[in-house]
């Protein structure tokens, strides 16, 4: 099958959607399908052979932060050329509502289009204003995928229609087979995420830390992710600062090793999550998980059966649960075992097969993707008359 995948965010900036697309493409290529990914990228960035650059993304303020997006005449032309050259059986657009390549592709293509909705942002003002335009483009999508039941609900509420739920994929064995690092073992708590992004919840964890360290004097916190380390520990009593170790940005291998090593993985995110891939990765690596009770997290953790949940933004509840878990090896072993079973449904072998099922369902009995040649006005008027 010839598959075209559209990535809305810069290929050279690491992010959840980009990793998802990279792994999805790798999975399809392994199965012998032809894959081409259209993604924004600087012209001098080295790209894998299956990625086609759609030109440089422009930083614009959008949706509360600065997003790097592609739009305008040049991008539209590149999208059209990619569609024309690719002659795809199916085009898979990620995040079709962001005003970037996804939306441009929706405009320019016709035929079987599959779209994955990653975020579950509340409807923004701009989206309400652009609703009519958006609706006309989104109507072309033959199959919608939401990454979680929560994302599906928001999608249905805001845009109408329906979607199938297929979770994000994780290479479970990559994490399960990683070698633990002895330096990161022994009463360690792990946190992975941007330090200076409050929604990732590090401040909540920092507020809970004094209580945890008082009850478990041997415990340490390992933090992986970029951001201002000084500012992150500023609220902590000076004596405790040495118990927080910053690892900076880590490679995929080190991330897996870190998750294999820690006694407890804490995800204190306060919002803005539609899935929670990091929880699946932690469970794959056999780390017991303690997470805030966001809708998306509760779903990934099987409503608390595969990992513990605490009341969102409640540092005391976090501290209480962390102390209890660190002092209860049996409970942690139970969570490990439960988690290892639970993550199988997020493995690429399952997720990839499901996505392929979607492709096969929408391509059955239709023609391949083509550029949408606008019908001439006269033909249209002829159509309108009868």
């Amino acid at each position, binding site marked *: 099958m010839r598959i075209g995948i559209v990535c809305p965010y810069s290929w050279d900036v690491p992010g959840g959607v980009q990793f998802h697309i990279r792994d999805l493409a790798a999975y399809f290529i392994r199965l012998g399908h032809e894959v081409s990914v259209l993604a924004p990228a600087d012209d001098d960035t080295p790209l894998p052979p299956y990625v086609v650059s759609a030109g440089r993304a422009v930083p614009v303020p959008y949706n509360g932060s600065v997003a790097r997006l592609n739009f305008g005449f040049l991008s539209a032309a590149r999208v059209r050329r990619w569609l024309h050259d690719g002659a795809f059986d199916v085009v898979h657009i990620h995040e079709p509502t962001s005003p970037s390549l996804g939306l441009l592709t929706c405009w320019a293509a*016709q035929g*079987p289009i599959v779209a994955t909705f990653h975020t579950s942002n509340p409807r923004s003002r701009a989206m309400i204003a652009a609703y009519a335009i958006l609706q*006309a483009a989104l*109507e*072309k999508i*033959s*199959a*919608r995928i939401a990454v979680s039941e929560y994302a599906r609900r928001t999608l249905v509420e805001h845009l*109408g*229609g*329906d*979607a*199938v739920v297929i979770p994000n994929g994780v290479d479970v064995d990559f994490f399960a087979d990683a070698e633990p690092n002895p330096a990161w073992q022994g009463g360690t708590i792990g946190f992975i995420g941007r330090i200076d992004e409050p929604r990732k919840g590090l401040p909540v964890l920092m507020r809970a830390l004094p209580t945890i360290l008082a009850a478990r004097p041997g415990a340490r916190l390992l933090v992986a992710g970029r951001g201002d380390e000084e500012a992150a520990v500023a609220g902590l009593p000076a004596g405790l600062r040495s118990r927080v170790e910053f690892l900076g940005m880590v490679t995929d291998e080190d991330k897996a090793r870190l998750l294999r090593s820690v006694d407890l993985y804490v995800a204190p995110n306060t919002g803005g999550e539609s899935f929670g891939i990091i929880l699946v990765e932690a469970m794959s690596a056999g780390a017991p998980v303690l997470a805030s009770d966001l809708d998306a997290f509760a779903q990934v953790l099987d409503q608390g059966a595969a990992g513990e949940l605490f009341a969102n933004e409640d540092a005391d509840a976090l501290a209480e649960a962390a102390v209890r878990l660190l002092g209860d090896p049996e409970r942690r072993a139970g969570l490990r075992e439960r988690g290892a079973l639970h993550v*199988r*449904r997020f493995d690429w072998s*399952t997720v990839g*097969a*499901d996505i392929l*099922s*979607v492709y*096969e*369902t*929408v391509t*059955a*009995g*239709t023609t391949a993707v083509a550029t949408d040649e606008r*019908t001439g*006005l006269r033909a*249209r*008027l002829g*159509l*309108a008359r*009868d």
Partner: protein
Amino acid sequence: MTSTLIWIVLALLAVGVYLSWTAGRLDRLHTRMDAARAALDAQLLRRASVAQELATSGVLDPAASIVLYEAAHAARQSEEEHREVAESELSQALRAVFEDTRQVEGVRVAPGGEEAARELAEAVRRVPMARRFLNDAVGAARRLREHRKVRWFRLAGHAPFPLAFEMDDEPPAALVERAA
């Protein structure tokens, strides 16, 4: 005077272009709906054929075979207006027969059973997918057709009003777990 006339002509032209664009949109939605309906039809037929094959293969016990055969046969032969009911009954029969993981295991160890179980698992997963995609298209087409501009200018032509396909498509848990 002339300028008023020019403005009126321009306004009429704009309205015409807008209506023609809407007609194109509607036309595309109808095409998408037809494709989705064909896809659902294919998946339902596939599911019924695999079920019927399993029922006549002798792998299942006689009682289960008869239940499954009856349901699969009825689903394949049903008239358009009874199809939703017949297909729902096939879903129920499949759930009743494959409620137990041991039954699925029993099919898998039989010669050629691995293949049959995989095909059935695939079919029961794809039916709900295809149905969602169809109903999504139907919903979009309906929303547009109920709009004033489409009704007043009869942009939908003689195309029948789109109907959703409602049925019980819950797959048997034991079968889907195996696939997962």
